[in-house]
């Protein structure tokens, strides 16, 4: 696979040029608009709303992780405080204390994020690397602790409100979930566009330079601390917008918004989606939210599955989903994509067998450790059995073993089909 890595990021990034870039942007705008017409159940709408919020949060996070090389364990601080800003604003509007259209309330969330981004960022961005990670975590813990003490955070119950304030524009009152969905989708598009545009500015490029080599940046006139500080402040605006939208969506903001769990979400999403491409965090946010909502319905063990997905990505595909996709560009461009299909199918089938085994094993153990009081009988994939007997366990182990055996072979098949495709590309290049 090292050959694959040699196809550089720069090469991959310019791969998407001209018309294709436009197609990408058009899909990005049109899809969110028509999706709720296709998936119109309230379940789907609420999931897609959640995805929209997650996308903004993850994109904001990647302004730090991918673009600036800053690993934050406390990004929920800006998300949560943005949420509190908005929920209190909603209550004030409800009480008739001031007028503000709900459509633009997320801006107040952004302002809340910014205010705290400026105050905390001033401290945390003095250093990059481990120091930054630790300080961000400390600030996260600090705010979480503060939220249990200070009455403004509403204690364990949190602060709730009512988003239907009667101050909507054009008669939109944000009662029905579909209106909220479009509010979120609109803000997600605006935020994504701004974050993308930001990456194409002088600051956007210097942030990359500081990520790569803060020392050298100092010798071309830039103070790395200042550069990090500004990008953190900007990123906290978008985290605050996401938090504000969550406040409007759920009509409640609680401690949970500020928790370490909440800080871990954008890290998972961004890493799984891929930090080195703009759309990576978008993919990650969609996938993780989907897993969370859908898998969460079937099993309480979903964080465990999330952990497994995360581990697999870290170990085998640190470039994330976006990186994996973009790696295929040169091969697709050369028209050799079909060559990869058989080995991919092979990997998919064997992978599924292995996955089936792993899921069974996880569920057995989960059942044993959390629901043993209701007996050893359980139902999985519509089949009922008793895990006190050895039979289900044997089947499970067998599935994993067989799946693993063939999956390994599939991996080497993938690797050789890649090599042959790459060799052909190289060959035809040297003929030119």
């Amino acid at each position, binding site marked *: 696979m090292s050959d694959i890595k040699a196809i550089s990021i720069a090469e991959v990034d310019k791969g998407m040029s001209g018309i294709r870039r436009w197609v990408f942007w058009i899909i990005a705008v049109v899809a969110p608009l028509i999706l709720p017409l296709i998936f119109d159940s309230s379940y789907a709408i609420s999931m897609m709303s959640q995805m929209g919020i997650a996308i903004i949060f993850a994109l904001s996070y990647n302004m730090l992780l991918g673009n600036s090389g800053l690993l934050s364990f406390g990004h929920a601080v800006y998300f949560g405080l943005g949420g509190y800003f908005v929920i209190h604003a909603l209550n004030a509007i409800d009480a008739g204390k001031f007028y503000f259209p709900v459509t633009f309330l997320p801006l107040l969330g952004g302002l809340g994020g910014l205010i705290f981004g400026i105050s905390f960022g001033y401290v945390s961005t003095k250093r990059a690397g481990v120091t930054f990670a630790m300080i961000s975590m400390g600030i996260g813990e600090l705010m979480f602790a503060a939220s249990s003490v200070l009455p403004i955070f509403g204690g364990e119950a949190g602060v709730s409100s009512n988003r239907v304030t009667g101050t909507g524009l054009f008669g939109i009152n944000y009662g029905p979930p579909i209106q909220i969905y479009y509010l979120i989708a609109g803000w997600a598009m605006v935020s994504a566009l701004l974050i993308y545009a930001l990456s194409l*500015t*002088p600051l956007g*490029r210097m942030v990359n330079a500081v990520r790569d080599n803060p020392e050298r940046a100092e010798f071309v006139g830039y103070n790395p601390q200042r550069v990090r500080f500004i990008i953190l402040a900007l990123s906290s605006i978008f985290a605050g917008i996401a938090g504000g939208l969550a406040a409007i969506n759920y009509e409640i903001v609680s401690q949970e918004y500020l928790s370490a769990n909440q800080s871990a979400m954008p890290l998972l999403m961004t890493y799984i989606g891929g930090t080195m491409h703009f759309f990576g965090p978008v993919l990650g946010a969609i996938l993780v939210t989907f897993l969370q909502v859908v898998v969460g319905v079937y099993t309480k063990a979903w964080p465990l599955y999330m952990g497994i997905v995360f581990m697999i990505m870290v170990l085998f595909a640190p470039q994330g989903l976006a990186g994996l996709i973009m790696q295929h560009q040169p091969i697709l461009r050369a028209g050799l994509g079909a060559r990869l299909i058989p080995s991919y199918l092979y990997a998919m089938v064997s992978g599924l067998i292995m996955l089936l085994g792993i899921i069974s094993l996880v569920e057995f153990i989960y059942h044993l450790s959390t629901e043993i009081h209701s007996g050893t009988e359980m139902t999985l994939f519509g089949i009922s059995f008793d895990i006190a007997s050895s039979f289900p366990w044997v089947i499970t182990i067998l599935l994993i073993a067989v799946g693993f055996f063939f999956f390994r072979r599939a991996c080497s098949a993938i690797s050789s089909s890649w090599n042959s495709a790459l060799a052909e590309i190289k060959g035809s290049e040297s003929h030119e």
Partner: protein
Amino acid sequence: MNNTPILELADVTKSFGKTQIINGVSLAVPRGERHAIIGPNGAGKSTMFNLISGRFPVSSGKILLDGNDITAMPPFEINRRKLSRSFQVTNIFHRLSVYDNIRCAVLWSLGYKHSFWRSLNRLKDVTELANHTVEEIGLGAKGEALAGALTYAEQRALELGITIAGGAEVILLDEPTAGMNHSETDAAVELILKVTKGKTLLMVEHDMGVVFGMADRISVLVYGKIIATGPPEEIRGNKAVKEAYLGEEAV
């Protein structure tokens, strides 16, 4: 005519822990001079550059740039005052393209600071200067390549490009030809002469051919002390220098 030296070191010392590496260096470099620093390995040449450019704080003494005290300034402040340096060990932005490396090197000097409301690609002056510099250092065909993927010689060229792109008046080059063969060295020297025309150049260099060929004056640093400063012919004839340094290399 302005007669203040563009760069002046007054009795500068530097210690790391208990060991004093720079033992009271004084030096005045007039505007427009090409000044070479030579001396055996470990003499403190790179350390001297690190002090001038603000990478390390001095232990005592003063450094003046165009008459202004820059002794306690951080590197970026010094760079903004038009002093730029290269590194002995290549120091570039590895995950950026060659072109972006150079763009980053010109942004501050062209006044764009932390601008996040302008599109980088639309900045004509940045584009022109970056293209010009990339061509000048001979990497025109490699503009889109990742800096980290360049050959050693190409990275050295990029190192030089980043240093000179911003249009600094005082340029410090730390062993720009280290590790190069003869023809590469010749090309590098030609390039250096071209891009530093009209500027003040301070250069640490081991190749005596290069040093005696291009320097207006030479300072010899031995054990953290300048034992002689003067034009090449004077240095060649200097007895102390011969004993301390040139003798062993038999030039």
